[in-house]
């Protein structure tokens, strides 16, 4: 019997142990992203409660994916304008973010504030974003939350002059992901 074969069960034991100890990825299938547009004419608020977020706890990599179609507005007409004219969700159905949590310590119990840096894509435009994010760990649950601002014109969203007064140039975006261990 070779040395490798002899060591194999030992290796397996450690591999299983490491796996059982802590799952390497956490997931939120019902992450929340909402945005606000405040102008003197009108306040617009929309919420998406079906945002997917996955974090790799060892590398600190994070992936977020959301369908534009899933935003809920106060008025049905706002939703229609949003999907049909502004983000054109039939052509660009989703927005995504892929990045990394800088200096992330997944073993830290409690709260830590970190910068998440990565590429955010929406409406066919990709931007590098650095988002200050609060990360709270309670046992195996990781809650990520924060706020950032996005310029409408950065994403080539065209607003007709007639409605320019109704929609803010800077949109404030809030997010919250409650991530649980991911089995697969």
């Amino acid at each position, binding site marked *: 019997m070779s040395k490798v074969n002899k060591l194999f069960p030992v290796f397996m034991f450690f591999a299983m142990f490491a796996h059982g100890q802590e799952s390497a990825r956490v997931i939120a*299938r*019902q992450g929340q992203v909402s945005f606000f547009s405040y102008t003197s004419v009108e306040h617009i608020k929309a919420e998406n*409660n*079906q945002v*997917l977020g*996955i974090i790799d706890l060892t590398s600190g990599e994070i*992936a977020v*994916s959301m*369908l534009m*179609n*899933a935003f809920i507005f106060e*008025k*049905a*007409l706002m939703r*229609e304008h949003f999907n049909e004219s502004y983000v054109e969700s*039939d052509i660009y*159905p*989703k927005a*995504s973010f892929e990045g990394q949590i800088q200096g992330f310590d997944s073993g830290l119990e409690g709260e830590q504030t970190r910068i998440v840096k990565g590429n955010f894509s929406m409406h066919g435009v990709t931007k590098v974003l650095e988002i200050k994010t609060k990360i709270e760990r309670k046992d195996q649950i990781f809650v990520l939350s924060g706020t950032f601002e996005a310029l409408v014109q950065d994403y080539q969203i065209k607003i007709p002059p007639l409605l320019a007064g109704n929609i803010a140039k800077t949109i404030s975006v809030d997010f919250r992901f409650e991530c*649980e261990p991911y089995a697969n």
Partner: protein
Amino acid sequence: MNRRKWTFAVLVAFFTLAMVWLGYAFLSGEHRSISEEEAVFDLSAEQLFMDWNREGGKRFVDQTIIASGTITEMEKNSVILDNKIQVNFIDMALELSNGDSLAIKGRCVGYDDLLELVKIDQASIVN
């Protein structure tokens, strides 16, 4: 003559009110009530997933769909059927568990290519 003027005034007032009401109804716009809508498609989770991947999902997006399958995963008020579709219920408190078979009616939102799932929201249970 006077009477004619009055009739005219009343008509104008009525017309204006009607316009205002119509304008308001148009601007506020009713939200859809998916649970009361007639389903356009009725298929299994597996079938929906296969059709979506074969021919693209444009014809399903924003449509009311009845889909059936077995719960393979759960999170809050969201369930995954046959590892193929993710269903988000309107109702927050549902007494469901892994392995339950059910048919749901909801609105097809789109496809998530990160987990490879078709997504349905505003769902209610039909059986």
